[in-house]
């Protein structure tokens, strides 16, 4: 039998709180250790213990990272979803199930492989049997796929670092699972892993931790935060790195952390820190941005730097708190009442999470405004490969801050909001300096910062603010273009869709469609985005939401003659995107537009 090498999807169905995260990460890391290109998606519930959880592992020599179109191997551990999990499988699926669930597995069209996992785990340690049972499916998979024993051992060690007893028990359970499968299952699996040369420098990391490290290398001085899924791990990661990386010469820390009473307060603290001349940030998710909106307008109008990371989850309202979406993009771009516009940085890889983490502070201080980092649960809470983070390539940009009397004297007719250089960005002085003090305000103000309701003054201020943010376009990260020569069809996308786009592209190519792609990495969008649209006959805007939010922004800002060739493909069901779902929608829209 010819085996299918490094190309399959495993779905593990367990209950939340049973320790399955450990066993799933051991599978993921052991395959990664062998050099198999692999990705893992944790589909977890908004719950501490008991509700169903799925973990999807995709191995792909082509580097596809989205969940595959169908499940090839199904692990069945959860009684509550048992029959639904079974019913969803295509004929021919390999089913590995815990016999001790004592539930029927009536799928004659599939390969059903049972193992008394709980009973065997009880043999090792009766108290821990519920947790240990999960290690038996690791052993089963190791047998079926041919995962290297040493790679497994290394992954176990990594998972239970320093806990010798746990390492020993779990290795034993995995080994027992492997032996049981060898001795009892008369089945040769058509799927297999094969070792590949793993570049020695690569490792897996969650997007949230990459942003956290980026923020630290951006010189963060204050983190304020209010816990919310899926952004909490970003804040907690910063907190865990501060003692190691943010220690001053006297041994004291150079970053303060405040767990705020709510998101409003967290945003207010960032504003206060930025106003006083420090680098402040907070991280949250959609509901938090909604609450912060009043302060977001004050950032914009009083021109104070600050950074907010939105790790997008599925909205609206409380929505699906543990599922992913790109549903907050237009909110971030235009949050708060009145006419506002904010800089939004949109990383698509963990390397960019790190880079935009430090750059966000530079843009915020340069443009004296709020900068959003826009991630999502998929990028933020799943593990992605990197070959290591690059040290910031540029010095910190502290923007136009006047720190001495001489600097102040050098500016004729100084005013806090006077556009001396013609770029819309005025000079500022800091509290405590005694230099040109003003009372900052969210009310209308003139060029000197004095309260004003004058129509001309208001209009001039709003026009300058528009000019200021507009001036950021070509300073912000340019789009990543992958262009075909034909120039007929272009796809614009952003963020975590990066991890699915190659597979979408391949599916389209199989259908005879040749497409170019353009990944937008910031708002307001770079002029190269417009050039890309200009070069193509038809342009799809692909995104993980219902309404086509980037499509809406483009429609609003592009020249009217470009609009007719723009088409939205927007879809969201809370799940990480599957390539075929989006590819088929693209094909439909293209056919309809011909």
């Amino acid at each position, binding site marked *: 039998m010819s085996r299918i090498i490094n190309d399959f999807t495993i779905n593990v169905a367990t209950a939340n709180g049973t320790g399955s995260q450990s066993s799933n990460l051991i599978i993921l890391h052991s395959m990664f250790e062998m050099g198999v290109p692999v990705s893992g998606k944790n589909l977890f519930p908004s719950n501490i213990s008991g509700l169903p959880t799925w973990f999807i592992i995709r191995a792909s020599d082509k580097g596809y990272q989205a969940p595959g179109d169908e499940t090839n191997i199904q692990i069945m551990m959860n009684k509550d979803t048992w029959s639904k999990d079974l019913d969803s499988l295509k004929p021919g699926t390999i089913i590995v199930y815990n016999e001790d669930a004592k539930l029927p597995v009536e799928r004659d069209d599939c390969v059903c492989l049972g193992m008394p996992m709980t009973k065997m785990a009880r043999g090792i340690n009766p108290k821990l049997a519920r947790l240990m049972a999960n290690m038996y499916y690791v052993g089963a998979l190791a047998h079926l796929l041919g995962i290297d024993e040493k790679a497994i051992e290394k992954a176990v060690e990594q998972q239970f670092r320093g806990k010798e007893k746990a390492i020993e028990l779990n290795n034993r359970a995995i080994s027992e699972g492997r032996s049981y499968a060898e001795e009892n299952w008369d089945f040769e699996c058509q799927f297999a892993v094969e070792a590949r040369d793993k570049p020695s420098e690569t490792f897996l990391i969650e997007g949230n931790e990459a942003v956290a490290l980026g923020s630290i290398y951006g010189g963060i001085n204050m983190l304020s935060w209010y816990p919310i899924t899926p952004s909490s791990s970003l804040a907690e990661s910063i907190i865990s790195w501060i003692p190691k990386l943010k220690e*001053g010469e006297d041994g004291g820390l150079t970053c303060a952390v405040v767990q705020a009473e709510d998101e409003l307060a967290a945003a207010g603290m960032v504003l206060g820190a930025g106003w006083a001349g420090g680098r402040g940030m907070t991280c949250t998710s959609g509901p938090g941005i909604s609450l912060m909106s009043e302060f977001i307008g004050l950032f914009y109008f009083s021109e104070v730097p600050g950074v907010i990371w939105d790790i997008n989850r599925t909205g609206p309202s409380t929505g699906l708190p543990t599922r992913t979406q790109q549903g907050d993009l237009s909110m971030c771009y235009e949050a708060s009442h009145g006419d506002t516009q904010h800089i939004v940085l949109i990383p698509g890889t963990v390397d960019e999470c790190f880079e935009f983490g430090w750059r966000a502070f530079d843009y915020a201080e340069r443009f004296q405004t709020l900068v959003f980092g826009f991630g999502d649960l998929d990028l933020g809470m799943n593990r992605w490969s990197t070959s290591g983070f690059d040290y910031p390539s540029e010095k910190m940009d502290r923007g136009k801050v006047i720190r001495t009397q001489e600097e102040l004297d050098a500016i004729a007719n100084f005013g806090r909001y006077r556009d001396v250089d013609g770029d819309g960005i005025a000079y500022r002085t800091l509290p405590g300096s005694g230099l040109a003090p003003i009372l900052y305000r969210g009310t209308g103000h003139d060029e000197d910062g004095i309260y004003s309701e004058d129509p001309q003054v208001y209009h001039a201020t709003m026009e300058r603010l528009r000019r200021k943010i507009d001036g950021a376009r070509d300073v912000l990260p340019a789009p990543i273009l992958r262009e075909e020569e034909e120039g007929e069809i272009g796809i614009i996308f952003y963020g975590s869709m990066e991890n699915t786009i190659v597979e979408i592209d391949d599916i389209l190519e199989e259908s005879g469609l040749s497409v170019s792609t353009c990944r937008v990495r910031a708002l307001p969008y770079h002029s190269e985005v417009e050039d890309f649209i200009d070069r193509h006959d038809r342009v799809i805007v692909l995104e993980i939401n219902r309404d086509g939010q980037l499509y809406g922004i483009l429609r609003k800002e592009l020249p009217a003659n470009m609009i007719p060739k723009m088409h939205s493909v927007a879809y969201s069901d809370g799940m990480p995107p599957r390539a075929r779902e989006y590819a088929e929608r693209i094909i439909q829209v293209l056919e309809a537009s011909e």
Partner: protein
Amino acid sequence: MKPVKLNVINLEKSEYTGGKSSLCPGCGHDQISNVIIQAAWENGIKPEGIAKMSGIGCSSKTPAYFLSKSHGFNTVHGRMPSVTTGANMVNKSLSFLAVSGDGDTASIGIGQFIHAIRRNLDMVYIIENNGVYGLTKGQYSATVEKGSKKKKGTTNEQAPIDLCAMAINLGCTFVARSFSGSKKQLTALVRAAMSHRGMAVIDVISPCVTFANNDESYRSYNYVKANDEVLHILDYIPHFSPLEEVDVPEGEFSEISLFDGSTLRLETVGDEHDPTNAVAALAAIHEGAAEGRHVTGLLHYNPNQPTATDTLGLTEAPLMGLSEEQNRPSKESLDKVNAGFRAK
């Protein structure tokens, strides 16, 4: 020509004044602004070292009317404490002087007020408390007494939130109540609050001359004057001139030492009040309120408590002034971080 009077750092009082007030003539808030100017001047604080903070409302407009040499931030409604917190985190050398109102503090901003107290944020927090929303034309606020009646409309039937009692219950380290018409008492309290390290709350009854200065209002000038239960007569003795303003017979006063070395002398009137006793302070507030009286003076004092920045283990220098080398970890450290992940 009159000789120019200078304070201890050789500044004229005019260095502490601000713009022209746009509040109603006779507003209690303007008297409080004058007290703030007087207190900051007499205490010899460098104007540039002060950060003026406020929320939204009549009271929150007043930072434009004092200390024009200080930076300030007139923020959003009820959220001034969080902005102050952020600024304090990156620059703990600033002296934060905040003005808020009863709507700003007791309603929309009550959460942030509570949490600022919980953190013992190092600031002076003055509430200009008139019991009504002035800018929106006279609606009752949450601090107005049950049975009080403003100029137009019906009598208030809801129980009030007593911000001093609440602050004491929350462990606030300096809690006082005063009256905008009691210039001497209020000046001593503001000066003492400026000498305190930690959160100093001063709830100042400040009559609204436009909407609630009628006799049926518990916060009118006439009512407060007739029902002000003064706990003690206060004298502030600055650390730089220990003999100033002392004229009380031995045995009829007690003294409180403040963080900067200054002293607050409490001259006994009637029953002695011990401000270090939180329960006694609460009893005085509630007993007075039951009889329709406003109890004024230094209600509670609990010094030497860690402030919001004390427990964070921060470096000595204000974080906003750190150089790039101090702020951004080295390239070598990132190499180690990368290597650490690879070794996992």
